[in-house]
């Protein structure tokens, strides 16, 4: 077939030059979705390094403390970013953290299950919640914002109601024997001064980046979020992609719950509140487009890091931590404005 294609010489002069695209390496880098988050991280770090260096921000303990906060947001933020790239929201992850924590604590401390069984139960319930969210969104075509908003309330209400019904309490302490041993080290151990959650967070980000950038499924995630009809027309199993990504966000909440419960030694129904918004904030600061189809998990990783640095940095400066949210709010707006600029440049001029 190719033999009959127009030879080079047949093209009118000048016509080819107009179509040659030159993109410098720097230019290409400046259009990366995670640029704002990386730059923001550096700025925030420099700021607190200057303001709070003598109060411990730069110490190993200080670093560990902001990394731990970042990990808590990031463990859920990474899959949430992936789901947003696939074009959907999950507002139920916060409630899922509370629910999964209670499942582990009640099953082990109240019913005497082995710890592993409690953790498996939490993951199974989370996977079912994710399946339910995904299935309802895909089958009804309703916005996931609404579907998972419903789940946020329903799950939280069910957790409180069931906990009271079964144990008469909303806060359960773990059985002390479960706070040692292999599973405890795996989820809540420490590597030097650094809690295991940091490793989980970084590990998840690496896996998610691999999936997004290097696998066929990753290409489908971008396709499903970019234009679900177009993607379906060329053969992408859009429904499957979305449902699986909902399962990923819900199970990441179960992972965070496991870490929190084993680290704190107790579960509380209100754990994870507002986490859904923090995760979305991390993703958005990281350059993920709210309408889907664009963004990166690395960006969300840095978004979560900014979150941790700001929260702990303000603590180290000695300023009232009430100011934290104001700072975060300003960061989100700035990051979105900046990301918007980058995206326009990526999409148009070259």
């Amino acid at each position, binding site marked *: *077939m*190719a033999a*009959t*294609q*127009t030879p080079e010489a047949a*093209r009118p002069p000048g*016509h*080819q030059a107009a*179509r*040659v*695209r*030159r*993109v410098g390496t720097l230019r*290409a880098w400046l259009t990366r979705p995670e640029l704002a988050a990386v730059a923001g991280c550096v700025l925030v770090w420099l700021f607190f390094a200057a303001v709070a260096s003598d109060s411990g921000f730069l110490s190993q303990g200080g670093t560990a403390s902001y990394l731990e906060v970042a990990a808590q947001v990031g463990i859920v933020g990474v899959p949430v970013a992936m789901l947003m790239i696939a074009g959907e929201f999950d507002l139920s992850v916060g409630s899922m953290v509370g629910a999964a924590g209670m499942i582990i604590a009640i099953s082990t401390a109240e019913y005497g299950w082995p710890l592993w069984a409690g953790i498996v139960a939490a993951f199974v319930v989370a996977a079912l919640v994710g399946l339910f969210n995904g299935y309802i969104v895909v089958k009804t075509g309703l916005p996931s914002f609404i579907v998972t908003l419903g789940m946020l309330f329903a799950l939280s209400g069910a957790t409180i109601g069931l906990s009271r019904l079964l144990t008469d309490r909303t806060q359960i302490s773990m059985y002390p024997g479960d706070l040692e041993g292999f599973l405890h080290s795996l989820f809540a151990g420490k590597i030097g001064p650094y809690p295991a959650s940091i490793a989980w967070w970084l590990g998840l980000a690496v896996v998610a980046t691999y999936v997004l950038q*290097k*696998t*066929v499924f*990753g*290409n*489908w995630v*971008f*396709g499903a979020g*970019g*234009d679900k*009809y*177009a*993607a379906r*027309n*060329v*053969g*992408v199993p859009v429904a499957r992609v979305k449902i699986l990504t909902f399962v990923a966000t819900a199970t990441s909440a179960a992972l965070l719950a496991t870490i929190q419960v084993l680290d704190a030694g107790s579960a509380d129904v209100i754990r994870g509140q507002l986490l859904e918004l923090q995760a979305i904030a991390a993703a958005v600061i990281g350059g993920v*487009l709210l309408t889907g*189809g*664009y963004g990166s998990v690395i960006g969300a990783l840095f978004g979560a890091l900014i979150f941790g640095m700001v929260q702990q940095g303000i603590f180290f400066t000695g300023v009232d931590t009430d100011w934290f949210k104001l700072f975060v709010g300003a960061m989100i707006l700035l990051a979105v404005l900046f990301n918007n600029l980058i*995206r326009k440049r*990526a*999409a*148009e*001029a*070259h």
Partner: protein
Amino acid sequence: MAENGGSRNGGPILEARGVSKYFGHVVALEDITMDVRAGEVLCLLGDNGAGKSTLIKTFSGVHKPDKGTMLVDGEETVFNSPHDAIERGIATVFQDLAMIPLSGIARNFFLGREPKKGKGPLQRYDAAFADRVTRSELEKIGIELRDTSQPVSTLSGGERQCVAIARAVYFGAKVLILDEPTSALGVRQASIVLRYIDQTRAAGIGVIFITHNVHHAYLIGDRFTVLERGRNTGTVAHDEITTEQLEKRMAGGKELARLEAEFKRGAKEIRVPAHPS
């Protein structure tokens, strides 16, 4: 142009015989008989609502005809889904082009049909292969890319259309159905697309070119089928008709003539109240 026309093996590759399609009381298509041969451009002309969309959706497996039959290579065929049509080499490029604007060109080229490398859980997207093929396929049509990962939105409208066509050709289209590929484009961009349609025809692919632009159709078409209110008003070859005649055959042509007459009359009438008798 003309020497490329006609069929490789004589018969048409895609044929509709007496195809009708109804939506409730609405007659979308009535007794349509038409065909396309290898290496020709068949233009499907008609005004909005003439049934062009329904007809291509029938060809591409989205709709099943209520009456009549479809034949591929002379063999009676029923398409149960768009996938069936694609399997038989009938590729349709719809107006949305089925591309993700902010996604890279190579990733768009292979979206849904990604090349893989590795085995089992290590199986992954073969980015190097996708990059190489996209680059060489687009070079053939004169789009040279430094970076195949740049977003599709950085391409011009005509180039985007060409990428969508190149993708269909690469994945083995024997018949290419193009839904208004030039209607949203300026002259320069449209010429990029028309030139590429010519190349595609030269490569032996049968092209069904849907348009309401008679001038674009006449430039590239070997035969013309004009649809009006869901009926085929007849198919004519390029050398049997002029642009003007073709324009008249379309409902749009008649409508324009009526409009012209109306405006001339209107101009007189406007003068009347200025000089009341």
